[in-house]
């Protein structure tokens, strides 16, 4: 599988290096292909695109709103917690943080409690940190990547797999 992902990365490299693929500019209303524009985000293309890409400004704001909203929800938010107390179903407003504190205090009663607690806390905070990074990569850095390709006629042409010059 590592080989296959490696291949997928090489495909991306190929897209970048041969200059044959095209990409719809994220900021150009998606109506025109720009021949020979960088199709993926190499460091160089990322820098140049970030300077010229007005959409990035709005996407950054979008990301900031998502992250701020999520952060505020975690710190100040409250939810209707659903649970059972002595065979009766309870729905009670509870702070998000209080719920997670209860989880930290209720970790499984097995060996190596300190290690378990440390692992859980690292995972919980790691989840939040990585979520922020993943949102950045998904919404700000990652842009549409449309490599135009020649359609095959009889459905048997394997060239469909390979990026080919833009049809326009």
């Amino acid at each position: 599988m590592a080989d296959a992902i490696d291949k997928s990365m090489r495909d991306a490299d190929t897209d970048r290096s041969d200059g044959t693929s095209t990409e719809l500019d994220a900021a150009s209303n998606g109506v025109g292909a720009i021949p020979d524009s960088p199709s993926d985000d190499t460091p160089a293309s990322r820098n140049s695109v970030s300077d010229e890409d007005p959409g990035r400004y709005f996407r950054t704001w979008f990301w900031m709103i998502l992250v701020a909203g999520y952060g505020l929800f975690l710190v100040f938010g409250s939810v209707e917690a659903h649970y059972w107390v002595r065979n009766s179903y309870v729905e009670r407003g509870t702070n998000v943080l209080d719920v997670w504190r209860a989880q930290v205090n209720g970790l499984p009663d097995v060996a190596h409690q300190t290690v378990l607690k440390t692992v859980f806390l690292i995972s919980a905070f790691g989840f939040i940190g990585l979520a922020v990074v993943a949102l950045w990569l998904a919404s700000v850095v990652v842009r549409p990547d449309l490599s135009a390709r020649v359609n095959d006629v009889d459905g048997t042409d394997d060239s469909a797999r390979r990026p080919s010059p833009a049809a326009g």
Partner: protein
Amino acid sequence: MAELVEQPNAVSGPVQDHSARRSWIASASPAALRTRLNVRSWSAVHQFLVVLCVLYLVKQVIFVLAFPAFTGHDEVAHYAQIRFIATEGNLPTIPDLSDWRAEFAENRESTTEDRIPDELYRYCQYVTNDWYRGCDVPSYLLNPPRAVTFAGEGFPSGWIYTANHPPLYYAMMVPIYLLTDGASPATQLYVFRFAAIPFGLITVLLSFLMVRAIFPSDRFLSVVVPTFVAFQTQVSYEGAMLNNDIVGIATYSLVLYLMVLAIRDRFPRKLCIYIGLALGMALLTKGTALTAVGLVGLAAILRLGIRDVRGLAWRAVAIGAPLVLLAAPWYAFLYSTYGNFSALEQIQELQYWNYQNQESPGFFDLLFNVQFAENRFMETWGWFGWRLIPLSSTLLWAIGLPMLVCLVGLGQYAATVIRGRGAPENDPVERPENWQKLAILMMLIACVVAYLAIIQFGTEFSLTQARYYFPVVNAIAILLGLGLRSLIPMRFHPYGQGGVLAAMILLNTIIFTQYVIPYWELTT
């Protein structure tokens, strides 16, 4: 596998082998490796994939630890099966009811069926009714029930009801059992749960590879599809518990991925052999993988054409030989032990509680039963364990409505593709090649077959569940992703990607904060 991807067209010749070897040597040089390991040089999609995988791993740690020991569906029975194999050195079997009754008539205290260890009876409320649920009674805790009487007839209680499951998962877990032999069952259980995480990760990676195989350059799908799979709550739950389901999901996903490659490359020989091996592994993990055999066969016929009898024949041999080689011993064992290939007849006899107060429903009764579909949807997102934690209907609608919108988008996409006009010239997703159309069609068929299979199972067993269609989660993700993609204008795709990821993160956070943690931690 890389070789398969790079040389998909035919059987590799010597020249291609040499060039592949040279390319491998070049890519393995220190300089090339340094470049490869430089994260900044990766494309944004691959950077995202790596972050998503790490995010998945930490999320799974939370899943593992948030659920108390043995509360997952069948964890007690699976643990018993692993212990049985590790200590007895052979597979447990399902008791034959008439033999058991004869034995029980002679000695009510010591029947010899393969049983779940008595020390696990304290978790009896998380087991099916195959072990009488009396663990709140102190005397039963000291001496767990071995039999029950129903309608004047005796039935065994506490038998290992997972004994008809194929052995691959248990064989992989036995070394872990032996390594942790000195620990308590609960500690061992958490180790087993952690051992499930890699299989979930493999499923996420396969979803990425599959969507890259069908649409190599589309970033929207490359982000959205693995995101959906990584954050689907019940698939994540399967990937954080002691259960063979997640291995079944991973192996089935591998079959689907290889099938897509084979559709693209017209079923070359090497790929057929790999498909056979993957099918064999899938069948050695979970019996539900049988549907994948039919899917692969149908894909080959549709891709090659029914008239190419010779081509179909040698491909059937290339796929069938490794498949039979791997799976035949298990099916031979089933037949020699039970006289059939599933042992479901024996289980049906033993489960006196199955459709106890009603007649078994017919296939079409379940197909058009709205309540049945609603329950499966609930099981797809909530009801963790044996239907323990229900989600509110508001939340289910909040999940279901966007999915319905995606299905509308899928319909719109299908209409555009079938019409063959109206799609942007330079959008390869909206203008798929014939093989891509077939790959998408096969994803759709896989989903339909998976749902029909749980309906068929439900005509005989009341405990049919949504998790039996989780093996097609990657296909579901691709179809929903395609639907969503067709509804979002191109320039808004980055917002769509971020929105889907944010929604899935929030959904997981809410389900845990509002339902899972309160259910276990606030109750007392």
